[in-house]
């Protein structure tokens, strides 16, 4: 077999060639210098002093091309010009049914219904494509799909992570904010400003305050005994997230040492951190009352009422030792945290204020009980008294009693929200350059500033009565038309989602070590247009979706493959493995099971029994919740949803820039054996019989229309009909085992009679077709 270049590209895409090709640091003693960072930065002859993406944005002229009739949008001219340079022709338009499957998957993350396909295929009007695209962009499914991609960057989760991985009950509100923002077509500039500084822009406005969940989404460990370190780690997470997700830079590398390739200094890095120095998380703010909140309150009231006496008795037991317990709890923090904790409030600095707020935010009733346990449970403990022991025993008994009422607590949702805030104070704690990134080794103090290699602009910081104004200043610079990166980085991410590869393929690194753009003029055109349109996201999607380059066939072409084996020039439309969520959600659509409710608290669909996740994964009692779109599935940082996880779903620990595509036997096991998936195949089989009747060919056609937006070709028909015959024997033999247990279609009409053996054969056929490449890929 020819070892195609595609192999190499695939390997490179997941970094495989790196181990062999990279040369690296061989001086292990040089502990703080990341020489390895140089590995990819080979000097190149025409490299300008600044990386391409950092140069000021200048709108390029649309190139002249020969095949003018191919140009539907300016995008096409940029693509075609390069193809013509290479002597390549673009591919012909793909047929309409394949186009609508492609576009619906890309815009919604779902397969289209046969009715939608039929309507589009038979639409003879001149604006059929425009109508389709406008319909796609107007659906709430568009916002759900776009939001998922943003949540990857926002390292979104519904839990805190780390060992105990507590639920963060308010984070779904941020997820809904993101979905709504895309559906309302909020300008990208405003979207960024609200997420970075919503509290400064619109104090008291819940809808906007919730947007700062972007900052608040960091993994957190509430039981950390080192609050000083925690502050540093949180600020680091936020700074690195903004740097990568919005700016497309690896500025985070400059935390421990000056950047090796991009000339970011440690001073640049800590100057960026300084924008967030005074930022604190505030949880538990009462939310405006809607259905979710009322239902939550109603359920909570039940628990409250049922446990009132128990909790009163507990409070009585704690009351006399409460001060002691709090002191005991506070004393267990590390030395430098204690310095802030035990300082009188009148002497607090901005730094002490942050530490003490954090302490408040993570201290719970259980911490008081912790003291009682320590003082009451063990005679050897210096705090032990017989009186405390008695108190603890009683308290423990009550706690066990209280636990019995847990099932009365609301199963999902919340009546509060979370925001970032500066706690009503405009003064910020100082920020220092840290030697080697070690927060115990501060060097010079720095002020908020933009990286000097990117701009000579200075931040205009206008403190308000209640906030430093620093984040607003940062957000304003990020979305300023003069910022060379923000627009380029975002339009490139959108391009990456449509064409499986960005114009800059390292989507979160526009620096020198990142890849060079394949079509720099096109990227600058898109970015300029984006800015000119006042960051109109739907307009950007519309132009891409209506372009000729997007409309091309993905059929293999020898000439294109020979001339451009990596398909960088896009002479052929690149096929793409569907993302984890697209696979599951499309299965739900196919099975006719999708519950398309938009927004609301996260849900827990069933998981394999031997996952043993216990209380961390309480399967939703309402089975309708099992059929919600994947974006609404609870993101538990320590337990990635097992149906999606094998298909390279995003890790929620850090910015997730790009979905990998790996192909593993665990994926095959999931789609073949998972009970939930199999039940969807059964439901799909039932739907096909329901809709197509008993004629075998009609059934096969319907199945293919639902899954692939087409009829099976002659070869496929032959293969499938052969299976129906041969497999009947297998099923018959199995059914003869005396138990007669076969899997039959779900959801047949009461009046429909069927032969159970034939029905079981059909279920297996459907399940195999669901597993086929044609389902999991979009072409």
């Amino acid at each position, binding site marked *: 077999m020819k070892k195609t270049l*595609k192999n190499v590209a695939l390997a490179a895409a997941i970094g495989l060639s790196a181990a062999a090709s990279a040369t690296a640091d061989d001086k292990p003693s040089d502990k703080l210098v990341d020489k390895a960072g140089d590995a990819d930065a080979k000097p190149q002859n025409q490299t300008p002093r600044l990386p391409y993406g950092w140069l000021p944005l200048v709108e390029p002229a649309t190139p002249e091309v020969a095949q003018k009739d191919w140009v539907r949008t300016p995008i096409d001219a940029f693509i075609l010009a390069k193809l013509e340079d290479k002597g390549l022709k673009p591919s012909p338009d793909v047929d309409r049914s394949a186009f609508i499957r492609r576009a619906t998957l890309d815009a919604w993350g779902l397969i289209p219904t046969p009715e939608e396909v039929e309507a589009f295929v038979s639409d003879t009007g001149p604006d059929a494509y425009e109508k389709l695209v406008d319909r796609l962009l107007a659906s709430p499914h568009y916002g759900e799909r776009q939001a998922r991609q943003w949540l990857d960057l926002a390292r979104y989760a519904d839990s805190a992570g780390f060992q105990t*991985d507590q639920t963060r009950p308010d984070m779904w509100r941020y997820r809904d904010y993101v979905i709504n923002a895309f559906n309302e077509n909020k300008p990208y500039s405003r979207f960024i400003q609200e997420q970075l500084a919503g509290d400064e822009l619109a104090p008291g406005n819940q809808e906007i305050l919730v947007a700062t969940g972007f900052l608040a989404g960091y993994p957190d460990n509430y039981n950390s005994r080192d609050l000083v370190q925690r502050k540093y780690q949180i600020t680091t997470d936020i700074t690195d997230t903004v740097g990568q997700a919005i700016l497309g830079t690896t500025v985070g590398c400059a935390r421990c040492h000056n950047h090796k390739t991009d000339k970011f200094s440690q001073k640049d890095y800590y100057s960026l951190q300084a924008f967030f120095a005074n930022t604190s998380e505030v949880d538990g703010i009462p939310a405006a009352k809607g259905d979710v909140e009322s239902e939550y309150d109603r359920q909570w009231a039940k628990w409250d009422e049922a446990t009132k006496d128990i909790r009163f008795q507990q409070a009585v037991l704690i009351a006399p030792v409460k001060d002691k317990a709090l002191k005991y709890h506070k004393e267990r923090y590390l030395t430098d945290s204690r310095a802030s904790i035990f300082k009188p409030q009148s002497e607090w600095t901005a730094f002490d204020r942050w530490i003490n707020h954090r302490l408040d935010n993570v201290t719970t009733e259980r911490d008081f009980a912790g003291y009682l346990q320590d003082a009451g449970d063990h005679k050897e403990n210096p705090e032990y008294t017989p009186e405390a022991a008695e108190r603890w025993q009683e308290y423990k008994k009550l706690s066990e009693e209280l636990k019995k009422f847990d099932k009365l607590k609301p199963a999902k949702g919340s009546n509060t929200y979370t925001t970032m805030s500066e706690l009503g104070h405009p003064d910020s704690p100082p920020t220092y350059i840290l030697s080697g990134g070690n927060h115990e080794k501060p060097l010079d103090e720095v002020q908020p500033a933009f990286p000097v290699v990117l701009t000579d602009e200075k931040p205009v910081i206008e403190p308000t009565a209640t906030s430093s104004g620093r984040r607003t200043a940062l957000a304003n610079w990020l979305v300023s038309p003069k910022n060379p990166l923000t627009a380029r980085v975002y339009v490139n991410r959108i391009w990456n989602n449509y064409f499986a590869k960005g114009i800059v393929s390292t989507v979160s690194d526009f620096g020198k070590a990142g890849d060079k753009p394949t079509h720099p003029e096109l990227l600058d055109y898109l970015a300029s247009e984006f800015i000119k349109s006042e960051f109109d996201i739907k307009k950007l999607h519309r132009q891409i979706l209506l372009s000729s380059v997007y409309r091309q066939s993905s059929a*293999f072409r020898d000439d294109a493959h020979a001339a451009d084996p990596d398909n960088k020039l896009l002479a052929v439309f690149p096929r793409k493995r569907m993302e984890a969520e697209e696979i599951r959600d499309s299965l739900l659509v196919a099975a006719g099971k999708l519950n398309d409710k938009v927004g609301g608290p996260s849900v827990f669909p069933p998981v394999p029994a031997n996952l043993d996740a216990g209380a961390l994964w309480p399967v939703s009692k309402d089975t309708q919740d099992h059929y919600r779109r994947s974006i609404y599935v609870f993101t538990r940082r320590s337990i990635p949803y097992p149906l999606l996880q094998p298909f390279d779903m995003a890790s929620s620990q850090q910015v997730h820039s790009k979905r990998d595509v790996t192909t593993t036997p665990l994926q095959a096991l999931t789609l073949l054996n998972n009970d939930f998936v199999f039940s969807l195949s059964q439901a799909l089989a039932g739907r096909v019989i329901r809709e197509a009747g008993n004629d075998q060919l009609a059934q096969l056609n319907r199945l293919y229309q639902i899954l692939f937006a087409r009829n099976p070709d002659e070869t496929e028909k*032959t293969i499938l009909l052969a299976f129906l015959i041969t497999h009947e024997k297998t099923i018959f033999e199995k059914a003869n085992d005396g138990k007669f247990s076969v899997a039959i279609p779900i959801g047949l009409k009461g009046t429909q009679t069927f032969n159970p053996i034939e029905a079981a054969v059909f279920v297996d056929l459907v399940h195999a077709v669901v597993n*086929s490449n044609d389902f999991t890929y979009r072409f």
Partner: protein
Amino acid sequence: MSIQSRREWLFNAFYGLGGLTLAAKMPGGGVFATPALADALVDPLAPKPPHFTPKVKSVIWLHMDGAPSTLDLYDYKPELIKLAGQEVPPSFLQGLKTSTQGGVGKLFVSNRTWKQYGESGAWFSDLLPNLAQHADKIAFIKSSTTIGATHDISILKLNTGDTSPGRPSLGAWITYALGSANPDLPAYVVLYSGKKEPQGGSVNWSSGFLPAIYQGTAFRPGNSPILNLAHPELISTAEQRDDLDLLKRLNDHSASFHPEDTELQARLRSYELAYRMESTAPEAVDLSKEADATKKLYGLDEDITRDYGTNLLRARRLVERQVRFIQVVSGPIGEGDVQNWDAHRELEKNHGPHAAAVDKPIAGLLADLKQRGLLDTTLVVWTSEFGRTSYGQSGNGRDHNPWGYTQWLAGGGVKAGTAFGETDEIGLQSVGKKVDTYDLHATVLQLLGLDHLKTIYLRAGRAERPTVVYGEVVKDLLA
């Protein structure tokens, strides 16, 4: 066409010529049907050459969850015994950030007896009588250090080299760098005791920013170790075989339109691997064919050792099946305070059973590996997120100690019967040359034939390596 005649036609079309020629007759299907071609496909788990000749093929990473007091297991300190009950002399506390109110507790000794074992004369306490018999197989690291005051962040650092989540675990790096030696099993397996995954679990065997294919696969207790391994209840094996044959025909057909597309071919192959795994994975953990004597060696005949012994016997079977990295997390014994080694109070009541639970199984593992000639090609690492303090807590427990504790290595390429580094006279802080988690990782990689500085993954323009920007191979531990 009647049903009957259609069937005849189909049979003639496909089966009249015999099943073997089937694929070749399918349009386009024949191109990809032969196994030789399948092997040439791009497989991110294909075995890759190490940087130099490796000493070992597999690693068994024994994580003692909750942090045992190595002061009560290996680090014999006569001075501590002498000073027991007194305040810690301030000189020993210099530079430490402690988390105990109003000064630390008084120096504490548990009720131990100590003896030297083997030709090396290594010290063991009475808590590890069985392991002590293998003193001469072990290279101790007595000056281990790390950072962090809570378990989760230090466990994260032990496994991934960072105190925040997001980096790949050591096992993931190894799988990435070496690929799989046995395609029928995951190359990186996690075994845990008890019914549930360790809290906060999967981030400790995550692939971080590496592709998900390199993450650890947690083996579940019982005979179906992988999620979704068993087919749906109503589907028989014969039925599934038919389904897979149909799937192959459909995929061959559609792949024929994309002859350049190796990814589509790889997906086809993944289903055959999955089908094989359905039988190889349960077989790998099935102990029914193990001799009674072997089971006894691992303590499967006693309640206290059965759970952990089962995991270690499984680990040996996985080593035999060329699994690269086996991460074994010690687990709960009974309820409440004996969940793990975290003995803030009542050290005796905690460490007694926890030591008993692992002592015989680990001794059994070392003996069994040796006897089967596997110890020379296997590395056993005994490790924990940190140690425990020389001063007491709650009267009879010990607090967390990231400043000085003991870990050990045994197996191929290891300088057996030695100890590297030491702690101060009371066993609180390491003195002299310290071994951080990065150094331990570098040393493990070295034994697998990998230079930690050349094990590189390019991510967002940055060349990442397993040891972040740190790490030094501890040459003194190597034979």
